[in-house]
């Protein structure tokens, strides 16, 4: 295989582009795709301060690395979720990335600052762990951006993430979720702008980016994500992709261009009138926001010891 650009030896094939790349030109292709995405969706203006939601995994670290390489003013924020050794190790990768490059990494520990962790919250609320985890992360990323004067929160959601969520939302016609599944959510009512610069790049691209750019990341999967339905959706979509390269990108970008605007009213209707949470001040449609309700239920619960199968 030869690189599409320089005809030197390729290290990776990108079948949806019917192209192969050497290391240098693969990294450039990834940065070009992010530039195209940022410009197409008006994600970030030059001079704005960006907070990257960092986990220690490949996507968030690649997102941080690409934005920095493109000249954006980007800091990181990592949350200690209390998912046993997995969380500790994930945070170590995030810290190592920042320290080796002299970057600013903000931190928050759920157990120390709010008196609970994700396994305990999942048990206390009888919800799947990803629900308590996602709710906590969204709230704390918003809060960190507001408290520290960031203009925009960037996450490492990639093409596979977005295609899988879209697939799930379409399967059950969750129209209010479809109306919010956009690469940019504008700032409104106390929520910072949120952007997903990696949506044109696949999960495989992001792993390769980290490997070729010399970024160490946690390869192990979250022990609490086992059985998650979106992992099954990703497998299903990859079965289609391998037979018909480009299907995931066509599915997702086609949705954005041809259908997403039809569902925005459903999302807006569901949001209702927002007012400050009585406890923390975050925007909410209820007296207390969902995160403060979670804190109230989980912080007094007996800590749950993480059980893993591997």
């Amino acid at each position, binding site marked *: 295989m030869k690189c599409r650009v320089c005809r030197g030896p390729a290290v990776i094939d990108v079948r949806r582009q019917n192209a192969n790349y050497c290391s240098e030109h693969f990294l450039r292709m990834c940065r070009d795709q992010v530039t195209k995405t940022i410009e197409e969706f008006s994600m970030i203006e030059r001079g704005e301060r960006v907070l990257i939601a960092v986990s220690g995994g490949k996507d968030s670290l690649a997102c941080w690395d690409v934005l920095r390489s493109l000249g954006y003013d980007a800091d990181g924020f990592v949350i200690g979720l209390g998912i046993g050794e997995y969380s500790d190790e994930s945070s170590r990768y995030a810290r190592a990335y920042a320290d080796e490059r002299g970057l600013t990494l903000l931190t928050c520990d759920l157990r120390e600052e709010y008196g609970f962790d994700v396994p305990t919250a999942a048990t206390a609320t009888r919800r799947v762990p990803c629900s308590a985890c996602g709710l906590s992360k969204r709230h704390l990323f918003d809060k960190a951006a507001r408290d520290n004067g960031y203009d925009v929160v960037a996450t490492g959601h990639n093409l596979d993430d977005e295609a899988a969520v879209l697939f799930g939302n379409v399967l059950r016609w969750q129209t209010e979720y479809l109306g919010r599944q956009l690469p940019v959510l504008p700032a409104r009512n106390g929520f910072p702008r949120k952007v997903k610069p990696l949506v044109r790049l696949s999960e*495989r691209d992001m792993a390769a980016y980290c490997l070729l750019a010399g970024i160490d990341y946690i390869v192990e999967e979250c022990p609490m994500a086992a059985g998650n339905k*979106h992992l099954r959706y990703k497998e299903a979509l990859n079965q289609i992709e391998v037979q018909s390269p480009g299907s995931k990108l066509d599915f997702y970008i086609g949705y954005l261009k041809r259908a997403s605007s039809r569902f925005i009213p459903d999302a807006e209707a569901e949001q209702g009138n927002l007012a400050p949470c009585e406890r923390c001040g975050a925007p909410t449609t209820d007296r207390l926001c969902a995160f403060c309700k979670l804190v109230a239920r989980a912080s007094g619960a007996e800590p749950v010891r993480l059980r893993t199968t591997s």
Partner: protein
Amino acid sequence: MKVVLRNPRREIDVPAPISVFALLNCLDLNRESVLVIEGDTLVPGDAVLDGEQLVEIRPVISGGFA
């Protein structure tokens, strides 16, 4: 040839030489879901693995979503 698989981490023996495509077919792995790394070098699908170095098949699928 030693091949390392992840999640959980384990090692298997596979006869060399073998192409990356053939290795993935042999293990029934979707090429969209993994990277193949020989030593510390990413290798494309048509590369032939000669067994001189450790080969890692690294999964790329991750994530749980609320």
